[in-house]
């Protein structure tokens, strides 16, 4: 019984870690899709607004 429970926990952790890793890899590869436009937006729009 204990072995079955341990196996289930291991499976649950494995699935969780795979999902978390997939999301982490994805975010690491694509983070500039958020950061670059936001930086441009801050510079171009809010910056212009301040000057005017």
């Amino acid at each position, binding site marked *: 019984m204990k072995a079955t429970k341990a196996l289930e926990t291991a499976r*649950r952790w494995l699935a969780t870690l795979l*999902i978390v890793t*997939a999301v982490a890899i*994805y975010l690491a590869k*694509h983070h500039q899709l958020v950061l670059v436009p936001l930086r441009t*937006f801050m510079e171009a729009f809010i910056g212009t607004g301040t000057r005017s």
Partner: protein
Amino acid sequence: MTQILWLPFLCTGATLTAVWPWTALYDRRPALRCLTAAVATSGWIVGICCFLSALGWLNRTMLLLATAGFTTTLLALWWTTPLHRHARPLELRRPTRLGLLLGTLTAVLYTALLLAGWLVPPYGWDTLVYHLTVIFQAAQTGSLTPFPFPAAQFYFPQVGELHSLWFFLLAGSGEHAWRLTGIALIPFALTAGLAMRIAAEALELKRALPWILPATMLTPLMLIQPLAGYVDAAFTAFLLAGFAFALLAAVHRRGSDFAFCALSCGLAMGTKISFLYFCLPIVVVLASWPVLRSLVSRSALYRVPLWIALFLLGCGYWLVPHATKTGNPLYPIAVKVGSTTLLPGPVSTENVASERQRYLDDGDSGWGWWTYPFNEKLRSKTQYSPENGFGPLFAAGFVALPFALWIAVRDKRWLLARALLALPATLLAWAVLSPWEHPRYALPACGFALLALAVITARVPRLTVSGALLHLALVAGITFSGVAGLLAATPDLPRALSLTKKGQSSPATFYHYRYGPYGHAFSWLSAAERSGSTVTFTSPYFIAPLYGWHGRNRVVYRPNPSDPSLAGQTLLLDYRDWRKFLHQEEVEYVVVWKHWQDGQKPRRISERWLVENLSDFRLVQQYSDTVQIYEPIFRSEELATLYQPRSPIDLERLSQPENWRAEYVQGGTVAIGEAGERLRISYDFNTPQNDYLDLRAETYWGRWPEFGNLNFDLAGASDSVLLFVYLKEHNARRMCRYQVKLNGSKPSSQSISLNLQQPDWQTDGFDVTRVTEMHLVLEDALDEDTLTSEISISNFHLQQPQSGA
């Protein structure tokens, strides 16, 4: 501006309001009632547009009257009949904190998307070629008659476009209404999200309920697609709705589940005909013995005609006429299984070039798709576009699928297992049957991937370390998807905002920076001072902007031999035909879009006609080297002869060496010259291998079928060489071939006559009307021989067939 735009929202809201009480007869779950109301409203929009189109009354007034009549009738029927007593009370549940958090995020991001929609008009390439053209054409003609350019897209069902048309017409069809054509497509994300929520409910994946709707809606492509004007998000919404209703049918086996499944599937088919293979997940879900048994029960059989009618409501307006006229409901697409043609049609997807290299590394044979979900690239750069952008949760669902499937099989939850097969089934259908390999075509897979994640979250208790990690990853993934998708939804957002701030937000300014010289041409054609011009074009790179954003220009076109071949169209066969067309239609401007990849090289016959007869046109505008706008000039001497009977075709140009060039030479040399009034071809076959030369001349007189034979005189040829004549269409894969029978071993003169109706050999689908080039192919009869000689050719002429000749 906003005063004229409230009407489409009011009419859509009124339809939803009128439909809403009726959904209480079906179910008490709010999400299911919302989904049902959304699908029914789409059904109304499509149904009424098709009905009014059939009568030629597709206009704003009739849409208003019909919608007012429909909503009033529905509401009156509901309250005056005893039906409302059977309404089930709405089952409201308190939202969870996670649901509230993600719901708020979704609302904020979609509000921002709606606002961004006001800043930019639809900008996608396909949108400016055909999606918007369908809308302008319908708004001008009052019907859904295909635009006369013979592209398959104009013959496809147009459910997605009809939703934009509904908004465009009701908003008054003006400059600002154009912006609404993209905004009209935004609500499909909600339909898709609701569908996934219903699917999770049907599969008893309760822990997924707080996040699955926001996760679906915040898929980057779902945010990006509407403002580009593409309809893949609409297709996804209807397909996922069909999937959700199929799951409900599999669980409850209620007639209403099947009915709404049929309507959703019809609408999906009416949006994109690739539903034909993307319907596989729905088929798999319904493929169980209890469901099949319920389908063949007596009461169900009684309802089958209703289900068929609902399916056809979504797509029958296009498919039924195609089927009755051509025997192929998917006309003009040919459907083949292996080498067997199931449904014949002039357009085949067999030789379509894959676009894979836009997304994968150079030379990748397709294995790169396995890692693509973790690094979504376009042209070697990590980025989202209207073509790609599945987001992190698709990657997570992709890796979670084997675990989820294992859990479903272990627990013997066969419906869940069949539902999880939707992801591989969609990806397999996309990989095998969709030849272009654009990721956006597989967008429904994003929804199916969430089901795999939902199975895992159902198994991981939330109040454990693993549960917290999992939910943290989910929230991070959803937030990232939404923000990145929103930022990618509006190209050059900072500039759009900056222009808006200065009060310069207009289609003109947007297209100027988006499409450069093309955008300047769009502006000129849309100039407010012009009350509406008649415009035609040589290349179909952009059609919709020719209408102007006021939609007042009349765009006319008649196909020529360089266009795709579709049955039943009268072709413009030569320059004189084209001039007659320009004169008859009173064309004021001919727009020449030069393809940016080709530069100055004319690719279309009409462009070549224009270049060769520039004195018949006046250059009105030129933007860079890529856009020219001409005005046709008709002099009295031309008008005096334009409508007179045609003079004999002059083929003298084929006897002139400057009209011939060596296309391909192997194992020898060739010189093309003149000998008196004859074309002289001197060749030197000097290798012991097969020596071969291929000479090409442009033709496009187009009137070949009026004649029986093509004749010419040949001198100097002996049977030590083989001489072939090829006639090729603009699509050079289609051709016919003649072998010229030479007189003997000594060079001699002979008259050659080729029967145009009976070539020695021809490819499938070859049409002599579309011949645009002639090839002379000469090769040595015996490979080991070396030869230095010449032939001369003259007196090309066409003649009627002589009896007994």
